[in-house]
Structures are given as structure tokens and as C-alpha cells.
């Protein structure tokens, strides 16, 4: 886990008892984790009354350092030892290291899920609707008498709030083909999961 020189400087500021008193540090660590998880709370620290005694520029630098640390630690799946080792080099007191680890490690799984979902992906199928019609006749032909399925796949597309639909029709044989292939895929997955 490596962080740039300016980030390390900011972290040292956050660990310095002269600039950030002990009782503020816990709150700082909590706010940093909260800011990563929730978009609305990202700047909540600016109006927080518990940091009234702290100089604004120092607070901003310390906050950015702690957030950068949190993100890197989640990205590299760092454990308590790794973080402790890193923070010792930033001249954190053992108490602060301990309280940071306590706060961070409880939030780590949620942050991992959040970071895992960052990135582009194809439309993700979440649901399927179907409809069975009986095709009797059209203006070109009569006595057709075939079953027609209308399938609608509901997909989540990154960047859009509404579900997008992929619609197509299937005859009975085509649907049997489709279901056969999906069952193959499911069997393969189950085999992989068991082995």
C-alpha cells in the first residue's frame, strides 16, 4: 500500500495531537468512513461543531489524508497489521492507531462492496417478464394457430436510473432452445460451485 508524499504529510497532520485533539480524531475517522459510503455526507465535516477549535485549513488537509488512507486500505484489502505498520511510520500514537483500526475495520466490508461496483459493465439482467399469445391469423395469412411467447428482459444499465428492457418474441421451439442453454449454464455454475 503506497500513498503519495502530500497524502502522507496530511496524515501526519491528522496524527498530530497538537493539531487534532484526541477526542476529535475519533470523529474525524468516523466522518471519513461515512463520507466514502454516503454521497450526501461527503462534506458534512465542514459544518460539524465538534471541530470548532480546529483550524479550517488543517482540518481540510487532515480529512483528505484520512479519506485517501481509507480508500487505499479498502482497495488493497489491508488488515490491522498492515494499517498499523503504515500509521506508525506516519507517527501516529498507538491509541490513535487502535481507534482508527476499530472504526475502519467495521466499515471495510460495506466500502469494499461500494468500490467493487465502481466500473463500467454491460446491462445487467435483474428480472424477466413473459407473455404467451396464440397467433391465429394476420391480414396476409389465416389459420396460423401457433403459440408465440413475448419475453422482456429487465436490465440495469450503468448511468441510468430506470430499468431498460430487451424485448423479443419466441416460438415454442425457440424458447425450448433458450431454456436448454440457460439450464446448461446453470449446471456448469453449480458444478463450479461444488468443486
Amino acid at each position: 500500500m503506497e500513498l503519495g508524499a502530500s497524502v502522507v504529510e496530511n496524515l501526519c497532520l491528522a496524527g498530530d495531537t497538537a493539531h487534532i485533539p484526541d477526542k476529535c480524531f475519533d470523529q474525524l475517522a468516523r466522518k471519513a468512513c461515512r463520507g466514502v459510503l454516503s454521497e450526501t455526507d461527503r462534506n458534512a465535516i465542514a459544518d460539524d461543531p465538534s471541530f470548532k477549535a480546529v483550524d479550517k485549513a488543517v482540518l481540510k488537509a487532515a480529512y483528505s489524508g484520512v479519506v485517501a488512507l481509507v480508500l487505499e486500505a479498502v482497495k488493497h484489502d489491508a488488515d490491522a497489521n498492515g494499517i498499523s505498520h503504515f500509521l506508525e511510520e506516519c507517527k501516529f500514537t498507538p491509541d490513535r492507531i487502535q481507534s482508527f483500526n476499530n472504526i475502519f475495520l467495521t466499515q471495510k466490508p460495506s466500502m469494499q462492496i461500494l468500490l467493487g461496483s465502481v466500473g463500467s459493465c454491460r446491462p445487467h439482467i435483474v428480472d424477466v417478464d413473459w407473455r404467451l399469445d396464440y397467433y391465429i391469423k394476420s391480414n396476409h395469412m389465416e389459420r396460423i394457430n401457433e403459440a408465440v411467447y413475448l419475453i422482456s428482459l429487465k436490465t440495469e444499465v450503468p448511468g441510468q436510473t430506470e430499468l431498460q428492457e430487451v424485448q423479443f418474441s419466441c416460438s415454442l421451439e425457440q424458447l425450448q432452445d433458450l431454456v436448454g442453454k440457460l439450464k446448461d449454464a446453470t449446471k456448469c455454475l453449480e458444478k463450479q460451485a461444488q468443486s
Partner: protein
Amino acid sequence: MLLVLEDSHKKHLAFLSQVDVDVVREFCRISMEFIRKGSNPKVYQSAAQKLGVEAQTVQHGVEGMMYLLSESSKLMLSEIDFQDSIITLGFSEELCSLLLELYLANRNEIRAILSHMSMDLPHYHSLQWRFDVQIASRSLHHQTTPQVLLKLETKDGETMDTHLLQTDPVNLLHLTQVLDAALQEMKSPYCRRIARNIK
């Protein structure tokens, strides 16, 4: 169900009884070509010269035959209905049985051509799937996220569309179960009754 022919149609088809059986067979072949590819006036001219009649008579005869064959195929007339429909034309028995034979031989092809003309929704063509495990991304280095990639090809008339979609194992299972239930629905007593009774 009987095919009702108007007087003008009957007049056009009356020409067929004046020529040989082989000529009628040839006319049927020409009609089928025209149904497949569209009409070609030059053929009328050459046929008219060979038979010693006007080009327009030949044209009406062929067009009458095309209409007879395509309407009968569209309505999917049974043999008996077809024979009853052409009785009103007053053809010889040999000609009637020839027309019946030509109708039965060509009706599936004509129905296939007609179905291409009908409205079609984009329909399923093929599905390919692939199972991946995402082990890292720029934002998160240690991952094991299973993903199933699907390539769905749908055909709309002549154009083929490809949809690249993905899903996870849970949704794949859900998808399979729902579509399997849809398939079983066709075998239910209710659907079978409908299929039996609508003919």
C-alpha cells in the same frame, strides 16, 4: 370454407380450359416464379406467341392462377374445399385434379412467402453464454465476483441484432426458473384446450 371467385376471375381462368394440360402445368410454374420473384412481362409475350393468342389473355390466365393458388394457401383450404371452390369454373376432371395436385405441392412454399410479408417482431435467434470471475478492478484489487456474460442474437426480418448482457449466478437461476415455468405453461390443460379448439 369455400373460396368465392368473382366473375372477372372466372373469365380469366376460363382460358385455362382451352389449352393442353401440359400448358396449364407450365402456367403454374410461371405463376410460382412470379409469386417468388415478381412478374416479368416478357414471359407473357413469348407464351402468347407460342400459343397464338393475345398477350393479355395469357397475362390474365397466369394472374388468375396466382390469385387462386395464393388465396387458397392463405386460407389453408382442405382438398375437399379446394375442389368444391373450383367446381364453379366448369373445368374438366383432369384439369381439376391437376389444379388440386399443383395446389397441394406448392401451398407450403406459398405460406412461407406470405409469412415473410406478415408483421414480425424481433425474434430469438441464438444465445451464447460465458462464465467469468472478476478478480480485480482499478478500484478494488482483491475480488471474486462471478459474472455470467450472455450474447443474445435476435432477428427482425432481415436484420440481426446482437445484445451483450450480463447477469450474476442468482439472477441466472431466477431467469432459468421463470422461463422454464413459462414453457411448462404451454403444456397446461387450459392452453391445450385452447390450442385444440381454435382451428
